[in-house]
């Protein structure tokens, strides 16, 4: 028993394991790169790196074919730490290696943390528009707003999960139950034409629903496409059903109705994350090289204001120059509507500084290590000559 444990320990701290793990990571990265031809980079990350095991679908069965990023990275971490603790012996000559590996450990941990904690949002601003929230890329929510009082709105936002599970939602602020009848994770909307008698009658009875038809689409994983969900929602009040609405982010405007003597707005939208400050797009610029369509620069001039008035200033976000504010980073990601709408990517990554430090440490370590090698080489040559 003891020898088995000893063998295990020797294996865990061995250079052989290091080499095998490096081979595994090369294969993993290679496979993940090639699979990007089929899948978007986000799905590839989930499938290969943010997992313990990589599954491949063979026929209809998911087979565990390879250790995932967490397994390989975790073992590498154990191997690194183990080897250094187990074989620790103070020597100047090894300083470089220690630095390099300490940095590597930090880098692995940093990548793990950013995988766990990083959040991405998007912020679309038309010229002159002000927003104090950014939107999720993928998650949606059903927002039901009581707009009766002109002074303020009261919003009830229902997240994606109960919607996708077709649950019935009862909320104390709502005088009706929300019954999710159908939920399409990805869909396309089209106008219901007068000639199209053959199609199935729509479920929707209220709002734009009767004129529009939602068709289910397969989920997309492409980088430049988004899944556009839609749902049929029935509202059931004390006196029975109020009707069924079709909701989808593809519908531009929220749908208005009255219930229990109050005025309501309802829309399915990409989940909003409110911020303690607001941004106004003053001007989006798209510079091209003279006489060509080659883009030279994209930039957004933005007014940043906080409700307490402490911050009220203009900022310029352009390529390679994001705005870092309140733990968020705003990057120029794109543009729409003939250069009048800017699309900013908003990232919260509390561990963004770790890779910078880690890389500095590793670089220092490699320089030391190879510098010592080189010095040794020249000393030997001089001795031989």
């Amino acid at each position, binding site marked *: 028993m003891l020898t088995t444990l000893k063998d295990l320990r020797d294996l865990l701290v061995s250079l052989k394991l290091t080499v095998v793990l*490096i081979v595994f990571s090369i294969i993993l990265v290679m496979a993940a790169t090639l699979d990007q031809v089929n899948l978007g980079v986000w799905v590839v990350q989930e499938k290969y790196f943010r997992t313990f095991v990589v599954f491949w679908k063979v026929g209809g069965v998911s087979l565990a074919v390879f250790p995932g990023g967490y397994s390989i990275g975790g073992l590498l971490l154990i191997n690194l730490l183990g080897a250094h603790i187990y074989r620790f012996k103070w020597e100047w000559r090894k300083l470089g290696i220690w630095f390099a590996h300490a940095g590597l450990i930090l880098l692995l941990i940093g990548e793990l943390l950013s995988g766990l904690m990083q959040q991405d949002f998007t912020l679309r601003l038309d010229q002159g528009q002000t927003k104090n929230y950014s939107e999720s890329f993928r998650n949606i929510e059903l927002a039901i707003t009581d707009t009766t009082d002109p002074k303020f709105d009261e919003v009830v936002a229902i997240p994606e999960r109960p919607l996708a599970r077709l649950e019935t939602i009862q909320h104390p602020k709502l005088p009706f139950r929300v019954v999710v009848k159908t939920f399409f994770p990805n869909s396309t909307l089209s106008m219901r034409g007068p000639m199209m008698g053959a199609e199935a009658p729509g479920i929707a009875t209220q709002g734009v629903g009767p004129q529009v038809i939602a068709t289910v689409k397969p989920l997309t994983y492409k980088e430049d496409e988004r899944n556009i969900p839609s749902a049929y929602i029935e509202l059931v009040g004390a006196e029975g059903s109020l009707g069924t609405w079709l909701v989808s982010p593809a519908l531009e405007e929220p749908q208005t109705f009255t219930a229990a003597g109050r005025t309501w707005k309802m829309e399915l939208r990409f989940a909003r994350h409110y911020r303690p400050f607001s941004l106004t797009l003053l001007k989006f610029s798209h510079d091209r090289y003279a*006489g060509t369509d*080659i883009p030279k620069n994209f930039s957004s001039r933005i007014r940043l204001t906080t409700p307490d008035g402490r911050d009220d200033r203009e900022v310029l976000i352009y390529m*390679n120059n*994001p705005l870092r504010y309140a733990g968020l980073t705003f*990057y120029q990601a794109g543009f729409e509507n003939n250069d009048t709408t800017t699309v900013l990517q908003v990232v919260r990554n509390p561990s963004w500084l770790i890779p910078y430090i880690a*890389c500095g440490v590793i*670089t220092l370590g490699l320089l030391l290590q190879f510098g010592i090698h*080189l010095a040794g080489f020249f000393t030997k040559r001089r001795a031989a000559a």
Partner: protein
Amino acid sequence: MKRFLPLAVLLLAALAVVASLLPPRYQGEYDLAAFSRLPTLVNGRIKPLDTVARTSLLVLQGRQSVSTPEGRSASPTEWLLDMLYKPEVADTYATFEIVHPDVLTLLNLTPDDGAGVGKKRFTYLQVSKGLPELARQSQLAESVEPAVRTPFQRAVIQLRDSVILYQRLQGSLLAPGVPNFLEQLAHFDTVVPAGLAAVRAKQAGQPHDAAAAKALLELSDAAAALESTGYLLPIPPVGDRGVATGWRNAGGALRASLESGQLNPGLATYAGLGLAWRGYQPAAFNTLVHEYRAGLDRDLPGFMGRCDVEARFNSAQPFYTAMLLYVVVFLLAVFSWLKWPDELGRAAFALVILAWVLSTAGIGVRMWLEGRPPVTNLYSSALFVGWVAVALCIVLERLYRNAIGSVTAGLVGFSTLLIAHHLALGGDTLEMMRAVLDSNFWLATHVVTVTVGYAATFLAGFLALLYVIRGVFTKSLDAPTADALARMVYGIVCFATLFSFVGTVLGGIWADQSWGRFWGWDPKENGALIIVLWNALILHARWGGMIRQRGLMNLAIMGNIVTSWSWFGVNMLGVGLHSYGFMDAAFWWLLAFVASQVAFILVGSLPLSKWRSFSAPAR
């Protein structure tokens, strides 16, 4: 006698290099050299007409000279003048390279109709008959995603693009369908007032000169047509001519001239040049060129220097000369292993340094012209990979003096320049940087370091190839040479690890700055990461005693595959944020290279008893 061999070889080569740097001489009475240096704005950059002529020819037909129907070889500038002013003559030059047999069939052509060696070049007259069908086929091909197009579809789209480039170039100064356009321009001062008077009279219902009104109308139609087609923007802004904005094509300048009633002087010059070229008046042509040039020099002191240098750089072709030198280096150094090791070795080393200095100068001129760090696109990365690898070879050769550094320098220098030559067929290699890449700081740090990493990994691989070839096929790999090679490969792998790691990390930092994440598992990032991992693998396997000399060599050869994949392969996937360098023609070359490296690894894995160097009885 043979003592002087290195010096003699160096002198001879230096003479050849100097000869290539002399100003180009043009035959005939026209001062084509002066014309070729005139500036124009194309693709966002102000460049001499010489560059436009050469890069257009490279795109259209893969080489810089044109054969005329009489079998004469025309210079790029001569061809450009005919394109601009005598389109009917230019249409009879064989300017389109078409190799795909199905595309030829589409145009009702066979290789027998072609001109030149290989019968693969065709005239616009030959191509133009099939244009409607070509347009239809290219529309069909466009509907297919670029990554999955067949070779035929790619060839169709490429030819369609070539035809568009050709037509736009021809539509730069001569308005199609307007007879005597240049004469009308030359008489602008009379045609326009007369035409205006006639038009006003006509509107007032009075008797008028219908011909004068028609001439004015034609000029204004020509302006609109030229403004939409004109490829060249050769007309500098009247005020500040140094800036890139405000340059116009002939149509735009003509429209402005019609509005103001004053013919733009630049446009007047180009019209006069056209009349002189069409009318065989070299004296008038030369006077106009010189006067125009003097005007530019007066208005923009110092500005024209850049165009002069670029035209001179184009004709000197330093990278071509260096490529030839590397061939000589390789041969000399290989022969030095058979005979006269000292003399031939020193001769080879002298030439390596000469070729490297020449490439350094070439890269330096490109950097000065562009105002950028050395690597801005695939083409310049090929130049730079070769430059770094040869520099490292020079260091190795200085240390070991066994001609291994020279042989490798010849091999790597030649191959990288050959790759660069083929990459140059895509057009002007001094292109403007797309928005996200427009950052000299990151180009100078991330891109340069990561390219140095590529170069070092390749160098280790090529040194390992030498080890395997000499060891298996010859008896020349004795123990000292083998040890020296092993130390070289090990040292270079260390160097490669450092630079590829730092370069990759700097890339991550750049990505964090511009895309909001340090690491995004984008194909190009992964490619760089795999190189780092591979080098780390070699080092750890070596430290752990899992491999010895031969294993080190085989892993280093594998490094060639890994690096070529990261350098070119990931671009072929056509996905990710880095896919600006997309290319597809090179795919088969990449496969062939990979296959050859696998073959070498197999050879290197033969048992040592099969190696000629090691099977021999003890020396």
